[in-house]
């Protein structure tokens, strides 16, 4: 039975105005769904409801804004449905752009920070270890929980904003220490360090883990390398696309899993499911739906490209040119683009012929013209969704493969590490 605090009841009764009342009424019904005994405070939120899909998402945003909704905690905003400044360079219908911009405005009016990024954890609003937060956006949820050790349930669109307005969440699930223990064990078996160092490895592993984990919290053992943050970001995004991973533990890598024992909070680990090199090869093959060499566009940046990723890309493209038949697009945030500009790594990327889209991505905004039929990407998330959402074929490859393919105007991949020996 749900016990509300005096503050909760005041919000529910409308004493704090109509917006907290609406948000709390939804939250209370959801607390029943979750089987929560009480609500608890959060100190930060990230709103994924910013993505314009159609009239319903816009109705919801504008209804809350019209009721005078304000966020009660520091809140960042996820990608929107349009690149406010750059959409005219693409095939975005003006009516879509106008409605997506209205939806952006509605959330900005609530006092949230207009980051417009799906990688808020790489901004100054990155939460701290142990911090209680309410985040939407599947990749960001998995990253915040797993890589940072902040605590959020897997919040859906339209609930994230209710949490932000009330500053409250049902006290259940991943907010609670005991619910964060690993539930299944996946162990890399004989996967060579050289393969683990490949820049596709963590995205491929994430794709595979997402398909294996079902609704369980996976523990991954047998990692022999120290992955850079962007590799864990790629893992999180991949596992939350092919599956529903909101928290994973990587033994010796993520903060709640210094040891196998810690990952399971001292409970006995279940029998390990082995992941072999052959499993990883098969998972990598699944990410590619195209065959042959035709290539229309290279697309990077799901989740949004970071400064570190711009810095890796810059030397690969310096002095080279994108093939005239191919588009090369990087999706990122205003903040990261600014940082890349300041640090001098953006200039060679632009000189190479790359375009940059901000605030959104190719999955969230109808920007690609119909003649773009074959994509290449190093993002497992782009590779997972593009065939269904965009009706395109896709090839998954490394960052270096993407650059080389863009230069040659056809798909080329270095298969030396992934070929069957």
């Amino acid at each position, binding site marked *: 039975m749900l016990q509300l605090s005096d503050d909760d009841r005041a919000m529910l009764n409308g004493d704090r105005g109509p917006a907290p009342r609406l948000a709390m009424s*939804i939250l209370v019904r959801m607390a029943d769904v979750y089987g929560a005994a009480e609500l608890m405070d959060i100190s930060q939120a990230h709103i994924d409801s910013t993505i314009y899909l159609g009239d319903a998402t816009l109705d919801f945003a504008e209804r809350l804004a019209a009721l005078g909704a304000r966020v009660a905690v520091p809140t960042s905003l996820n990608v929107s449905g349009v690149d406010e400044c750059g959409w005219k360079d693409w095939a975005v219908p003006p009516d879509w752009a106008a409605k997506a911009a209205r939806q952006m405005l509605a959330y900005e009016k609530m006092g949230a920070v207009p980051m417009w990024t799906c990688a808020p954890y790489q901004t100054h609003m990155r939460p701290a270890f142990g911090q209680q937060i309410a985040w939407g956006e599947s990749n960001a949820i998995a990253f915040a929980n797993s890589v940072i050790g902040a605590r959020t349930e897997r919040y859906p669109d339209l609930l994230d904003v209710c949490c932000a307005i009330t500053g409250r969440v049902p006290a259940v699930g991943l907010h609670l220490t005991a619910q964060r223990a690993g539930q299944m064990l996946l162990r890399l078996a004989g996967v060579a360090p050289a393969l683990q160092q490949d820049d596709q490895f963590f995205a491929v592993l994430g794709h595979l883990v997402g398909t294996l984990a079902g609704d369980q919290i996976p523990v991954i053992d047998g990692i022999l390398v120290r992955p850079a943050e962007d590799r864990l970001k790629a893992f999180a995004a991949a596992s939350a696309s092919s599956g529903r991973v909101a928290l994973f533990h990587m033994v010796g890598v993520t903060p709640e899993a210094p040891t196998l024992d810690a990952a399971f909070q001292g409970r006995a680990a279940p029998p390990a499911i082995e992941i072999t090199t052959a499993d990883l090869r098969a998972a990598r093959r699944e990410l590619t739906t195209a065959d042959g060499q035709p290539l229309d566009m290279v697309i990077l940046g799901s989740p949004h490209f970071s400064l570190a990723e711009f810095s890796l890309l810059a030397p690969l493209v310096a002095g080279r040119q994108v093939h005239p038949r191919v588009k090369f697009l990087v999706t990122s945030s205003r903040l990261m683009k600014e940082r890349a500009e300041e640090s001098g790594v953006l200039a060679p990327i632009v000189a190479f012929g790359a375009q940059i889209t901000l605030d959104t991505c190719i999955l969230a905004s109808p920007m690609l013209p119909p003649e773009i039929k074959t994509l290449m990407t190093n993002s497992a998330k782009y590779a*997972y969704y593009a065939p269904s959402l965009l009706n395109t074929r896709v090839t998954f490859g490394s960052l270096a493969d993407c650059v080389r393919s863009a230069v040659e105007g056809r798909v080329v991949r270095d298969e030396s590490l992934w070929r069957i020996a």
Partner: protein
Amino acid sequence: MADRVIAGRAIVAGNAEGDALVTSDALSFWGGYDFHTGEIIDRRHPLAGVRAAGRILAVPFSKGSSSTTAVLVEAVRAGTAPAAILTTGVDAFFALASIVADVMYGKPFPVIALEPVDFASLRSGEQLRIELSGVIRRI
């Protein structure tokens, strides 16, 4: 022969009747469901190309995008949503979509959690009636 009556747990209560569309594979509605047509579009899903609008969709749980909820609410608004969703556990995404569809448009849809063994007994094409109590009858 399968039981005529299944005791489901009403996560969001409601009445519905229709033919079942059953899958054992989780689904993300964002990138997986076209709310303009009511069709499942995830090419990696066994139900790709099948229309779920107006049917009783049995899917063990949601996966993938947080925007699954928003897509479902769009589908309710557009009249292309499933008539009800049956799951194996409590799925907050489907429940929230129904609650918001209620708040915004007065059109909730039943979301019912089943025991795995009952879920496994469901077959696509069979006619089901969902009652307010969460009871599901094969008709």
